[in-house]
């Protein structure tokens, strides 16, 4: 596991150089903490969908659509689409 994890981390461009040689034990450390965190967080266009003025429940949408005289578009998934789905 250790060797594979080291290799995996070395494939991360932002993490390159942070970890020691692949034959040394690699683990989450204070030194690679920030780079690992930033890799895990959304980046680039991964969160472009939040540019839409979403209501996060159908009924919030019904209330606003009634007030604004607009049609409703509902995106419905197993698991809330803006949580774990």
């Amino acid at each position, binding site marked *: *596991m250790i060797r*594979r*994890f080291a*290799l*995996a*981390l070395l*494939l*991360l461009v932002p993490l390159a150089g942070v970890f020691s040689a692949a034959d040394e034990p690699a*683990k*989450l*450390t*204070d030194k690679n*903490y920030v780079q*690992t*965190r930033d*890799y*895990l*967080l*959304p980046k680039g*266009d*991964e969160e*472009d*969908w*939040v*540019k*839409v*003025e*979403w*209501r*996060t*429940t*159908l*009924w*919030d*949408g*019904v*209330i*606003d*659509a*009634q007030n*604004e*005289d*607009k*049609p*409703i*578009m*509902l*995106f*419905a*998934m*197993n*698991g*809330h*689409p*803006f*949580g*774990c*789905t």
Partner: protein
Amino acid sequence: MIARQSVWSDETVQKLLKDFVPCADEVWRLYNRPDPDCKFFQGFCDEGGMLNGQGMDKTTTRQGTYCCTPSGKFLGSANSRQPMVIAKLLRDSLKKWKALKKEDRLLDYDPADKVKDIDRAESHYPKNGMVLKVNSRDMPREGLNENDWRTNAWNFDFAWFNKDEVESMLPKKFEKNAEWDLPDALVQRVARLHLLDNVRGQTSIFPKDAVKAAAVKCKVEKIKKGVVYFDMTGEVKLEEGNRGLDASILGKGEYSVKDRKFTRFELVVVGDRWGSTRYNAREDDTAKAPIGYCLQIASDKPTDKVAPASFWEYGW
């Protein structure tokens, strides 16, 4: 999960949505519960009848994209990750909307009056507590296809903590080098409900007896201008049948003594996962492989106020 990025990030779709009130919701509850919002959905969801294939019955998922009027009239539906399919749905639905008379488009009562009759997890949002957004992603490894969406998949969930739980995370005394453990019950809850292999899609939680280890130790690094800066270290080991997680934890926290709240609470979890569940798209990827999680305080935006996927397990 993919539609979040493939459809709703599309510029054409985003422009078309200006003529709509866009909303998102969890479909199982809408299709199965008796609350007013659920009855509203059940009134139109099966019109068209072909959303998820022929022969829809009670067990067929109603996942998809629907257009309707505030009065509950069906305008159209589709279940697609293709932006152009959804763009066509929006255009066609808008055309139908414009052909309707106002009295047919709108309800003859104020829907706000029904809010009190709607029971949903979001009403338990811990506004005086803390919410962590739990991001999950595979760590890079050899042999994956960069053109496969699964290679770069990212998912998230929310972990909630009420006011009492947040207070239980604090040490008895704030002083440099003070050490304490986060409460076992909370760490175990985070581990088995949120450190899941949901990178590619929903999965089931771990039962309580799957927790072989789950601990987070805290140590104050410094105290400056009323803010307590502390580090966190820990581990988690989960095993159930053919699946599991073996990971280490590091974290950083900042607690404002004056405001009596965490201004930073961040955990990074990296280790090996293995196995698969029915819907998490790991059927061809069951061997041990690296996975990572980053937990951070969520924003106040509505999209960050969605309930934890397994809220029913909280017992609140």
